[in-house]
């Protein structure tokens, strides 16, 4: 376009000279046409270049005129006419540049706002913003660094590979200018905008960068707030979903508990009622009566155990904890006795017991016995097809001040997602193979409560289909 404007200047000069009217002041204004054209299309550069060439071309007719007539008023008018194209080109060009700059700024701001309102990740949006900023400011490199507030800052560059060196690079034929602007929306720094340009960094660009930085910080602050709000809403949604799920589980557990508890309580009660009624209403021979009394005793013990478990759990859950009576416990003898009892009652299971240099344990005998029984009972309950049940006890290898005992089975195992919940009260993990097994879902919760009451802990490892291993740690 500039070349066309310059060509037009030359054509005008040739035409005026050919006609012989080149010194007519009114016709000198014809030169303003290509100058205006160049200024309007190419801004300051075009306007100045066309104005300069037009002035120089005009000077070929005006200088001889001045030489001829001297420094008269018409000559001064000629000199003024010489400077007119340049002044006009410069002024119009600058206005055009400023107008374009403002337009570009507005466009950039709108595009930046639009891209920041996008639902993509903030880092992705920042990359787009960096590119938009680069094209709006007409600079070579841009880097945006944004403080996220909680972890490391987020940054994006245009071009993507650009990483500002500590020093502004000085090599190369063209110097590099760098401008670093803080992004502050009035509530503390949000980040920084770094721009680099090869050559000069014009005042207009600096002003534009300044204005853009302010808008950018506001937009980024808004985007950050939106992002935070979105995070918050998402977290809240997850929490509500979790709480709802937990409530449903509790509701289901409550229903199951009521059903199972009524069943568990009814079974011994029915036996107690039936046998006591027989003894009261019938004339039962002494041998049979003794057998009935034995059944009554067993069922009342069972009922007592259930009620005892419920009471203990209630105490544990209310934070009071069971009353412990610490005495020296021979853990080996206790395990051996329990293994013997369980082995005699469950012939389909193979029990293996291994004790390793068992130290003396100071604990509540009854509580340890109940923990052991619960774990053994669970091991049998959750290996319905039989299999091995291994019991080990000894000093804990990783915690020398503790004694451990483990109960391991080859049963159905526990799914990984259910593991965090198995020590909760009333929780029974659904499995078609063990659905018929009796229980209130209190055993493991009680084991944990009793272990904690001793200052110990309980751990579990399990693989679905392979079996489970429970490890109880108790202080010596």
């Amino acid at each position, binding site marked *: 376009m500039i070349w066309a404007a310059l060509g037009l200047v030359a054509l005008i000069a040739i035409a005026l000279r050919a006609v012989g009217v080149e010194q007519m002041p009114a016709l000198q204004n014809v030169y303003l046409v290509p100058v205006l054209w160049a200024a309007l299309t190419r801004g300051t550069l075009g306007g100045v270049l066309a104005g300069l060439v037009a002035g*120089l071309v005009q*000077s*070929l007719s005006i200088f001889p005129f001045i030489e001829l007539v001297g420094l008269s008023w018409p000559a001064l008018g000629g000199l003024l006419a010489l400077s007119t194209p340049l002044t006009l080109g410069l002024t119009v060009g600058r206005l055009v540049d400023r107008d374009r700059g403002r337009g570009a700024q507005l466009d950039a701001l709108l595009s930046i706002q639009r891209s920041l309102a996008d639902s993509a990740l903030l880092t992705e949006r920042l990359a787009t913003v960096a590119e938009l900023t680069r094209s709006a400011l007409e600079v070579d490199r841009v880097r945006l660094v944004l403080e996220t507030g909680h972890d490391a800052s987020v940054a994006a560059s245009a071009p993507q590979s650009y990483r500002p060196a*500590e020093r502004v690079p*000085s090599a190369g*034929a063209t110097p590099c200018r760098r401008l670093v602007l803080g992004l502050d929306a009035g509530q503390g720094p949000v980040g920084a905008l770094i721009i680099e340009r090869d050559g000069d*960094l014009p005042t207009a660009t600096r002003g534009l960068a300044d204005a853009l930085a302010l808008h950018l910080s506001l937009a980024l602050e808004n985007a950050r707030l939106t992002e935070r709000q979105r995070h918050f809403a998402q977290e809240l949604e997850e929490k509500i979903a979790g709480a709802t799920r937990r409530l449903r589980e509790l509701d289901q557990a409550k229903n199951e508990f009521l059903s199972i508890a009524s069943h568990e309580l009814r079974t011994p009660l029915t036996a107690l009622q039936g046998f006591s009624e027989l003894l009261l209403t019938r004339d039962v021979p002494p041998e049979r009566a003794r057998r009935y009394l034995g059944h009554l005793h067993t069922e009342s013990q069972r009922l007592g155990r259930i009620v005892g478990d419920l009471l203990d759990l209630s105490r544990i859950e209310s934070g009071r904890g069971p009353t412990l009576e610490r005495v020296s416990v021979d853990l080996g003898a206790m395990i051996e006795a329990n293994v013997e009892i369980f082995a005699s009652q469950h012939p389909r299971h193979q029990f293996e017991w291994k004790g390793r240099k068992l130290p003396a344990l100071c604990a509540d005998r009854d509580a340890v016995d109940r923990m052991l029984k619960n774990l053994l009972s669970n091991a049998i309950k959750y290996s319905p097809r039989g299999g091995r049940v291994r019991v080990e006890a000894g000093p804990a290898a990783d915690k020398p001040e503790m004694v451990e005992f483990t109960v391991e089975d080859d049963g159905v195992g526990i799914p990984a997602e259910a593991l965090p919940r198995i020590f909760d009260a009333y929780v029974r993990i659904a499995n078609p193979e063990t659905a018929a097994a009796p229980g209130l879902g209190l055993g493991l919760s009680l084991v944990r409560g009793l272990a904690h009451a001793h200052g110990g802990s309980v751990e579990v490892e399990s693989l679905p289909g392979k079996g489970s291993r429970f490890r109880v740690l108790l202080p010596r």
Partner: protein
Amino acid sequence: MNLLIHRLDAERTTNPSAIGGQLLLVAAIAAAVGGLGLALDSATSVRRGLGHACASGAAHGCFLAVGWLLAFQGRAGWWGPALRESVALIVASVAARLSPAGAVAYLLVPLVVARDAAFWPERLDRIGWRWPRERRATLVGAASGAFLGLHLLFAASLMLGYHVEVPNPRRYLAAVAYDVGANALTVEWLFRGVIFSMLWRRWSFWPAAVVSTGLSLLRYLLDPALPQTAELIAGAMFYMLLLGLGSCALRAWSGSLLPGYLATVTFFAAYRILLV
């Protein structure tokens, strides 16, 4: 914090006095050689004009040497090429004085400079000793020089009554060879290459262009070859000003000294039509 603790001008030499001392040394050597040449000229036994030629060569050599010295920031290595090129300029100047055909020797000077510059491409890249980023820059350079040259011819013929005619071809070509190998080369090398580039890194374009062009105007004002009439001096300054600013703009736009060099050579090629 880095912005505050790092020097804004990373290239500024840590020891300016060292450069100052070396600049003085270069000026002293050039003055001594020039003075010796002028003294020889006054001696009857030597062919007249050879001393002046020697002084002219020394002056141009001084420009190149100062350029090398500033480009190297006073560090070792600049004096070798500076000495070689200065000697080449003195030899070419003397050869041109002996015979117009001897001016062909001027054409060897850019080749010597190019050979020396090939050893320090990165250092000289910073002063614009490289090809332009855009090929059309050379065309624009030659066109702007031609435009100013033509304007000069028209203005001179219309105002001052100079006749534009083809001069003595041998003397004309000798003068053009001088511009190619000495005048334009040294001016672009020192004023646009070193001084403008150095100032442009520290300041913005306009202050750097004005100062470097001002210094180049001073060089032409002090040139004894400039016709000593007021209108010619004013005209020369007018064109040199436009040429200088234009060359700075071309150097900044293209990143190379070549377009400005071509503009200067083309302008002087037109100017020699008038002056020869």
